[in-house]
């Protein structure tokens, strides 16, 4: 990573920690802010993926993948932002499930890395497990939305710290260079 890339990671990690702190301070309403962030995040990613498809990937073998990913991400973004009228409990449930899904994907990726003989899977695996555990805790304490927000914020703090650490870490070896 270049110094600029490292700085970006560290700043992003710090931003996540700040956002978590703000959420904990305004726990009653902060889940709406989460919805907006995540919704817009999905929308932008989805649009980006679709733009890439129409610009480049449609000429590539297997390029439709980019289109499917784009459409799915956009749909997620729209669904996420449409949840503003729903009681907070359900919003938190949605967020928890999303978090759990992310955690499961991380675990599967870590397993695949491990199966392929690479040793660089432990961090990914622990990240995935923590995501899933936090999601479960969120669901268990769903009725107490404040507590659920605190749990979610803890997850953000953990992710933020991981980003900051990775900004200082020597990056993993590339797997193949021609």
């Amino acid at each position: 990573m270049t110094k600029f890339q490292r700085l970006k990671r560290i700043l992003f990690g710090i931003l996540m920690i700040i956002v978590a702190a703000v959420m904990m301070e305004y726990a009653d309403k902060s889940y709406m802010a989460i919805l907006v962030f995540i919704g817009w995040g999905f929308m932008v990613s989805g649009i980006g993926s679709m733009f890439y498809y129409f610009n480049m990937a449609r000429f590539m073998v297997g390029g439709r993948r980019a289109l499917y990913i784009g459409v799915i991400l956009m749909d997620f973004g729209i669904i996420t932002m449409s949840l503003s009228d729903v009681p907070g409990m359900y919003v938190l449930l949605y967020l928890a499930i999303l978090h759990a899904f992310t955690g499961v994907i991380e675990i599967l990726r870590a397993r695949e890395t491990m199966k392929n003989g690479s040793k660089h899977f432990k961090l990914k695996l622990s990240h995935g497990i923590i995501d899933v555990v936090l999601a479960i805790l969120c669901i268990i304490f769903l009725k107490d939305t404040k507590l659920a927000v605190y749990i979610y914020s803890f997850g953000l703090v953990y992710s933020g710290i991981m980003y900051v650490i990775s900004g200082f870490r020597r990056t993993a070896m590339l797997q193949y260079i021609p």
Partner: protein
Amino acid sequence: MQEDFHYYATYCAAFLAGFTHEEALDICYSAQFVDLCSRTLLLKIGAPQNAATTQLSLEMMDAGTDIVGLQDITRIWASFHFLPKDLYAKKAKRTKRYMDRYRLICGPNGELLKKTVELAKGHGLQHAGIAMHVLADTWAHSNFAGTPTLVINNTDEHFYEFREAACDGEKGNAGMGQDTDSDGTWVKIKFRHSPSEPDDVEKGLYSNSLFQGNEISIMNLGHGRAGHFPDYSFAKYKYLPAWGEYHELIKDNPWDYRKAFSQMVYAMKYLKGSIDSFETERYEEAVLEKYGDRIDRILRKRQINACSDWKEFGEELSGQEIPDFDVEKYQDEYSKAGKDEKENTFIGRFIKGALAQKGMVTGEIFKSGNMIAGFSKALPKGKLFIQNFFK
């Protein structure tokens, strides 16, 4: 390609082209040095880093894939290892962004190859070696581009290797290049992503770079997605290239490497002055008539490294010993030379050739309207001194 071809086979080709043993050693050393002349090495000996002809994995790790980083990567890999075949290729209904990458696809007998060989004429053995490295790689690395691009360099699970039926590494369909299915079978390849474990050609265990959906990921540079297959002289394989519109492509390395060898002999005859011009699609057939069987046996033998076979062939040709490649051989000469003397050292002459090659290719890419290798500016001839690149 690997050391077996870039060093030992280039030696053989140089000797057969009429160079002396010592001259052939200089040429083949330079050809192999292209794969090792990284920024780290140049920094170590106090040489201009702009002359790097390769990037180490650690350097790639640090290299950003922002716009400047991408241009830097493309300049090195497209100039020395994935020489574009046709910078003006046309393809209907494609965006310019796509075509900028498509036009970087490497292939033999392109216009840039002619320019590469002609550029080396009269500029010393080191530059000749660089040109031979580039020429050889146009055969091995064809159908991939020297820039990180998913839409050109990706491969998928449709990847098969041809395994000959009578698995006798000494024989093969010498020079025919048209194995029929009755001569063997197509075996599906399932790549693993284990960089620490070498490929096992007997068991058919191969590594490649991980799939990365990001267009400009380093994993999508060159032939990483095809693993080391392009560099194995024995390999015949088929796959669906990302740019190929679902048409299967069969790559016959023994056939291609044979062509590369004969073209190297022809090119070096031109560089020596034995023939007046270098044209693409021309080969030294006489060499193949005399040594074709021997060359085919080496190429088709199922082994990761054919150095010993090529070395044996080279020593038989010249009657002299070919020393093993030593990357540090000329480093002291360069680092201890005075500022004004560096240009006349072995590595100094190599650097001059590398800068010329890189400048030519980058300039041609820029001239074609493709900004993927960045801006290029022509220096007046008299300004091409090594010292200028320290500024």
